[in-house]
């Protein structure tokens, strides 16, 4: 375990050591690693998925994916809330001397909630729409990389958060596939208001 933690710190210090070499890249990564940019992109991608399919079958799959994503994200946030009460790992900037891009966070570092949410999005969408899932997965990976580069999280925090997100999204998607009444009733409501299609 100590070897894993040692390797974890080494990777963080090596990656964060690149800060300051290319200021423009640092600016770019500080925006990418921020809380709001990629999160907003993910939320907008949900809107695009709901309305943007060309064929009826694809639209149905996309809308089911959106419903599954909503449930999976809620469950993921609950898991993270429980786990941060158990694990109290401090942030990298509290332990090491690093170049922090962004502001100092004071909540526990392990596991990374934003990584969990991002990979929840990616997995839930990938289950129904491979192409969109890959695009959202790339965004999620970029976000997580930015968080480590900026010195906000350890790599292990990101890996743990991603695992939680992937497993939760997979289970929720399978469950909703079996209990199709729940997503169907939600989509039927939107169909009644001419904003969805069952």
């Amino acid at each position: 375990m100590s070897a894993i933690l040692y390797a974890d710190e080494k990777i963080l210090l090596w990656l964060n050591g690149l800060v300051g070499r290319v200021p423009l890249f640092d600016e770019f990564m500080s925006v990418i690693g921020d809380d709001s940019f990629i999160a907003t992109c993910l939320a907008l991608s949900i809107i695009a998925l709901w309305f943007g399919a060309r064929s009826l079958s694809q639209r149905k799959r996309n809308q089911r994916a959106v419903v599954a994503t909503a449930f999976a994200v809620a469950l993921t946030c609950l898991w993270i809330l429980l786990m941060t009460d158990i694990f109290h790992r401090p942030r990298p900037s509290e332990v090491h001397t690093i170049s922090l891009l962004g502001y100092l966070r004071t909540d526990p570092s392990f596991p990374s909630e934003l990584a969990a949410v991002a990979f929840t999005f990616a997995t839930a969408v990938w289950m129904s729409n491979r192409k969109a899932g890959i695009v959202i997965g790339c965004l999620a990976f970029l976000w997580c990389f930015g968080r480590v580069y900026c010195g906000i999280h350890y790599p292990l925090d990101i890996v743990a958060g991603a695992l939680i997100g992937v497993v939760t999204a997979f289970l929720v998607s399978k469950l909703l596939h079996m209990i199709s009444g729940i997503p169907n009733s939600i989509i039927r409501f939107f169909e009644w208001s001419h904003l969805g299609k069952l």
Partner: protein
Amino acid sequence: MMSFYICQILKATGRRNRLSGSRMRVGRIRDRALSKRSAVKSGRYSNERPQEYRDNIANLLLPEKRTRRAMKYELCIYLILIMVALVIVSVILWSLHPVSLATIEDAPLFWEYFRAYFLMAFLSSIGVLQIAVTRAGINGLSIFRCPLVNYIFGTLAIVGGFALFYATGDRTAEPLITIHEGGKWFFGERETIAAFVTGALIGLVSTILVSSLSKRAISINHQKPSPQGLDALKEMTFLQAIGRRFNSEH
């Protein structure tokens, strides 16, 4: 005597002519007077309109006659949407009101950050909607007739929204909004979600209103059955789809 009988015959003929000419009208009045259920039971009610009526409608290209109840529902929907539009305009004007630099240290920064994020969410959701509905062929929600213009408008709205947010302040800094009685108030996840959902919902309602106004001249084929869900918006605007549902129900 003969003239009396001739008059009677003429009168009767005239009455019969009026009756034959208005047999449909009398029939419809009678059917409306009876309840639908008893009319169906008695077999006098027919769902099909007479052929002559269908031909007249098709030939004259006039909208179907609407019942008073359907018109009342439509009026209520228009009034609600106008009120929503007024709320949207007032929210947008409030969000664009500049915060005075002189009082920025005293004024709570929460609303300034909320406004900035709300504007970004509002503009970018409109942009994403336009691109998505144009790609899907949902003409009832697109603002412009030309797909290329929709794509350009959508892209500009997304880029403009993000540029407005990130250019009007250091958004990577700590979102410490105000120090209130020794405590700290952050613009955290809940506030971010609330701002995004508000902006996206208002963006959706704005898109519905503007597209319904800009495309109100779409002619609808009343002979075809109305499609359900989003498919209905490929042929008509959102307000027309809602109005047509009330027409068909009443």
